[in-house]
């Protein structure tokens, strides 16, 4: 699947490894939370980039103490309607100060990318055929926000009171 990262198409340097699959000898791997918890020490001993997938319903609490060892957290959206990942992403970025890649995977639609970005997601596995123009358009349809999130955009409330100073 094409990957858009920090606003541009990027090569995916990561390999997602199933719970029963052998680990490749080198390169970054993304494993499930289950596998992470079971094989944490082995994985940390590999000296390669590590990523963990949070399936819908799995919460960041489970990996909070390991965040400085993880270069990537994938947040899975099994269906567009399942919005748990938005909370997971915000908690990772804003509460736990995670600075690595937060990647949205699964069914993520054009009209959701902007909200995902506002929640701290910076990499998107998008459908084949997606253009960067579409991505840019989706990111710029709404130029104002009413809520403060970790993306640092000033809110309408802040803009109002700045302009009246």
């Amino acid at each position, binding site marked *: 699947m094409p990957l858009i990262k920090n606003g541009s198409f990027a090569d995916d340097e990561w390999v997602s490894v199933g719970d029963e699959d052998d680990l490749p000898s080198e390169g970054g791997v993304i494993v499930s939370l289950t596998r992470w918890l079971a094989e944490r020490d082995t994985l940390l001993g590999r000296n390669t980039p590590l990523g963990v997938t949070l399936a*819908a319903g799995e*919460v960041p609490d489970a990996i909070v103490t390991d965040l400085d060892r993880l270069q990537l957290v994938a947040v899975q959206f099994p269906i*567009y*309607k*399942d*919005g*748990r990942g*938005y*909370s*997971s992403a*915000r908690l990772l970025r*804003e*509460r736990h100060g995670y600075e690595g890649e937060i990647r949205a995977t699964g069914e993520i*639609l054009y*009209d*959701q990318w*902007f*909200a*995902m970005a*506002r*929640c701290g997601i910076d990499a998107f596995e998008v459908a084949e055929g997606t253009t960067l123009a579409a991505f840019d358009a989706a990111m710029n*349809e*709404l*130029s*104002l*926000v*009413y*809520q*403060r*999130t970790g993306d640092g955009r000033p809110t*309408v*409330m*802040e*803009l*109002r*009171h700045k302009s*009246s100073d």
Partner: protein
Amino acid sequence: MYRYDEFDHKLVQERVTQFRSQVARRLAGELTEDQFKPLRLMNGVYLQLHAYMLRVAVPYGTLSGPQMHMLAHIARKYDKGYGHFTTRQNIQYNWPSLEDIPAILDDLATVEMHAIQTSGNCIRNVTSDQYAGAAADEIEDPRIWSEIIRQWSTFHPEFTFLPRKFKFAVTGMHTDRAAIRFHDIGIEVVKGTDGKPAFDVYVGGGQGRTPMIAHLIGKAVPAGDLIAYLEAIMRVYNMNGRRDNLYKARIKILVHSLGAEEMKRQVEEEFALVTEQGIPFLPAAEIERIRAYFQAPAYETLPDTSDALDAALAENRRFGDWVKTNVAPHKVTGYAIANISLKPVGGIAGDASADQMDLIADLTTKFSFDEIRVTHEQNLTLPFVRKDDLYPLWQALEAAGLGDPNLALITDHIVCPGLDYCALANARSIPISQKIAERFADLDRQHDIGELKIKISGCINACGHHHVGHIGILGVDKKGTEFYQVSLGGSADETSSLAEIVGPAFTEDEIVDAVETIVETYLDARENDERFIDTYRRIGKAPFKEKLYATH
């Protein structure tokens, strides 16, 4: 009332452009109906039995004269000349074409209106007390806080794909005209320990197929903490609400399964963490900015009594009846709150024609400081009328078929669209309401019976609020035939109670007689001025059940 500034304007206009592009993609075939569905649903566009339906937000039920004129214009230009006011204080148009919807949204934006979040699994339009700003004993105008919640919840990036739809209601006082205990979150403004406005926060109420009364989990939450507290509730719900079963996905099910105490604990834990992050939610200057929009209008100093009113009361009995039922006391001397019934006998509850909307718009400009309220009981309210003006106001309403003196009486029903419009319905609601109203059309009889709230739903989703009707009627389908199940004793106000099913369902031919039997049973048992609900609470279900099923 609140007015948009440049920022609010810009955001609504950008939303129209965004939706126009979504509609264009659908019409060009780039999006299938399935792919389009989540997009249209975020903007109040439903596919009903016969056509698309557009639901327009009326934030906390407040409209200005020019806004009402615009609603009339839309009804005339894009629909069949009428609109339907809903229990969410919104208005629905039943016959727009999809191609026209972007143009309708453009028109709405010119009067600071939109259809944002009137559907979808997001935070919906916030509802409030229709007497806001006019009721005595109000701690503070609840619309200040409703507007603050409206802005915070608009395009909230984290809470747009919740397990299920999410509804807020806010009141500014203990007397509850907004059914706050039957909302996902209900908020009552109270006096904080510092004497300033604070909030009692109720969570987990609702109707639908599993009706529940909300639990008070936040007591006197200070104003500066409100948004952080709400954000905490929403996050607990977003992460823990059920997503495996549509019918168990509302927050009421989460609260019920955790227990109110555990829900409270989790919310408080999350709230503490949110607060620790120090996110600036609501600058004090912003509260003051919004509060300034809800200052009292320029009232005149008037005597308490009005000679013009007294003379009219002596002269016109029907007007006297109207004053008795449809006019409520105002906090300012010499003023009154006037309610316009959208329940004429034989009509459709909540419907208003374009001409009626235009008339009401003109009347409020003339008589009520340009403000109209939509009530959750599907009527309209003019909140600031001089007692001197009540008679000319009523005469103008009466001439347009809007002068019925039946507010809260047995012909004033909440009614869902039912099988006449709705794709989910099992039975018709509108004709049942009409038949009951016709049976009890005699005004003297209605006034003798007194306050009696009948609420009718055409399916178990309970859009007609039958769980909180003094008499609740639920349409069910049994092998292709419509039956009507009767419940008694519900109430949506601060004495909140859920109606109890009285026995086996009635056929369409039997249901009006059944209502009459209930009324006769009440009248026989009534002591002094007892309302129906008081008598029911005193004597219980048994006498009604006995009479209803005696001959069966």
